């Protein structure tokens, strides 16, 4: 067993993907791509219906592992729920589309086709998954329910696959399946949630804050496993987190959300190394770092908007933006894509980012 290695361990260990893939069958389809267009999701409030997503556009390439980062209230979970067409009242999808390869526009799906799509095509772990387990049933029983409701023929294989996944995440699979939710720690429940998202072999996996309640060493293990399984199974993975470090560690693409908009999207290393949107730049500068000059870190002034305090027109970031221009108050900047990087900002559109690290005056 390797305990000291250079970078993440690439060996799949004792996991046999031949056996583990029983559920998917031999000819797995290619990973799906996702295209979100002009998505508007509103929540009913005492002030009327207000947009939590104000016309989001996002193209996720097949086979990528894409991080969605943003502060509390920026709309990350709402976006995740929309991908499953699972926005609950008082919220609703007001307009826009979510095209997923193999499924079509999920905004138009409902009833049985939608239920079957969730789990089989779309694996997901909701934020606070540890609280969404049924307290009265053992994890094993809930796993069998899940299998039955999706017409899995070989339930024994499903259990084997579940134990295997739990084992890889450092848990005793047999014991966990025999346990009730309250007998597991928060971190164990979170891993159960990840197992349930993966066990039906969905090719598009959506993880909402999958490591938030975990300890740092456990978190590192889970992140490594998420990346390994993503690669082995050839998935398209969306990982939602408020933690830039977590996103940076696992993802290859990164979408940055602010005030119900995706403001920047591109390759993770490029977005971090040369952020183009003023919000991304501010956010990265505000991260305390382990190396280098600590005085380089500086706070982002102001505070994130809420549904009620979003600017009525113009750029969502205008109130905190150090390079705001007159046009920003009235015209919402359209997303512009150059060299695989999408940025929604009037200032960047006028002067595209250079390669390499860019310092903002």
């Amino acid at each position: 067993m390797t305990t000291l290695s250079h970078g993440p361990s690439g060996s799949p260990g004792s996991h046999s993907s031949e056996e583990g893939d029983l559920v998917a069958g031999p000819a797995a389809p290619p990973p799906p791509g996702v295209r979100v267009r002009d998505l508007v999701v509103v929540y009913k409030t005492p002030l009327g219906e207000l947009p939590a997503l104000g016309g989001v556009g996002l193209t996720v390439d097949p086979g990528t592992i894409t991080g969605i980062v943003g502060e509390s209230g920026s709309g990350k979970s709402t976006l995740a729920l929309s991908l499953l067409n699972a926005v609950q009242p008082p919220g609703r999808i007001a307009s826009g589309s979510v095209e997923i390869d193999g499924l079509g526009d999920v905004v138009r799906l409902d009833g049985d086709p939608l239920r079957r799509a969730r789990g089989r095509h779309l694996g997901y772990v909701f934020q606070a998954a540890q609280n969404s387990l049924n307290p009265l049933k053992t994890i094993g029983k809930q796993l069998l329910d899940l299998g039955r409701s999706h017409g899995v023929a070989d339930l024994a294989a499903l259990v084997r696959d579940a134990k295997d996944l739990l084992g890889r995440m450092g848990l005793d699979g047999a014991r966990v399946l025999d346990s009730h939710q309250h007998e597991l720690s928060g971190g164990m429940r979170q891993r159960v949630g990840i197992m349930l998202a993966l066990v039906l072999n969905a090719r598009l996996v959506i993880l909402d804050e999958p490591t938030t309640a975990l300890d740092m060493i456990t978190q590192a293990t889970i992140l490594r496993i998420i990346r390994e399984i993503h690669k082995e199974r050839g998935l398209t993975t969306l990982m939602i987190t408020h933690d830039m470090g977590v996103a940076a560690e696992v993802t290859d693409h990164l979408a940055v959300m602010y005030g119900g908009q995706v403001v920047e999207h591109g390759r993770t290393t490029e977005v971090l190394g040369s952020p183009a949107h003023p919000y991304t730049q501010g956010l990265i500068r505000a991260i305390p770092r382990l190396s280098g000059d600590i005085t380089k870190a500086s706070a982002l002034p102001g505070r994130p908007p809420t549904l009620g305090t979003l600017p009525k027109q113009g750029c969502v970031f205008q109130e905190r933006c150090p390079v705001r221009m007159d046009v920003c108050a009235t015209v919402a900047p359209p997303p512009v894509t150059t060299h695989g990087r999408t940025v929604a900002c009037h200032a960047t559109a006028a002067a595209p980012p250079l390669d390499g690290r860019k310092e903002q005056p």
Partner: protein
Amino acid sequence: MITGTGITKTYKQRGDVLGSREVRALRGVDFAVPRGGAVSFIGESGCGKTTLGRIIAGLETHDSGEIVIDGTPMTPLSPRRRRPYFRRIQLIHQDPYSALNPTRTIHQTLRAPLELRARQTGRPGSWIDQRAGELLSLVGIDPGYVLGRYPHQLSGGMRQRVVIARALTVDPEMLVADESVSMIDVSMRLSILALLKDLRERLGVSLLFITHDIATARYIGDAGELYVLYRGQVVERGLTESVIHEPVHPYTQALLSAIPVLHGLERPGRERVVPTEALDERHADEGCLFARRCPFRTERCEKELPVLAGCQDSSHEHACFHPQRRAVIPVEAVA
């Protein structure tokens, strides 16, 4: 100056199937926080950080060991005589949402401790409101905006500033900040950290900073000491930069290896220490407490307990039989 020697604390848990179970939360911890200094404690969840913070703030009793505040040992004093000492050590809670009474305005929240303070120091009643305004300005919020409001009307960052202002009403000598920014939005975290740093410099308040986020500890405590706590024992300790950049204890190295790498800004360190198994409180107490999980353990480690001691080739202390520097932390990528 606040020091602790040999602080121990054992919790007895009842109701377990096997009868009562003991959790040794602290196993003889020594520490020293100089006046105006900054000391950080890091470690995995459950390793005893909060327990220690609460003991230092006088909110929890310890089983043995001594706490000395400005030269006065606390043990011989009656609880009543201890109180004024501990009042000068204020705990800032992790959760700014539950730390404030939701039925009181910020004005009421600050007024109560200030009234007491005015009586103690013989100040007139007019001083109270003036001081409330001063303290809010000091923590960077507009008194006119917040004084009449209730906690739920404020953002998390503002609430945490109010919590800090309330702690300052007693003119504390030390603030104990336990995960004080982990529940605050990323973009506002740094400004709270900067505020704590600034209060230390301007008011000379010392700071005991408890966190699982090592980069945060570095930001706050760059000039001070860093303690790495594991299962109730300090396993490595020294100047913050030295412990972070030249760790010799395998547990410290495992913590540092677990930090996510900001690819694009950083490169991973050359080496990586991964514990051989997960933390389990039921692990044996024999030998080195980290032995069950340590990739470098030898027979000796399973029998003997290494104690915290100096280190030949570095400025800090460690509790390990086989200390060795390893390049585990992410390094800045060259542009």
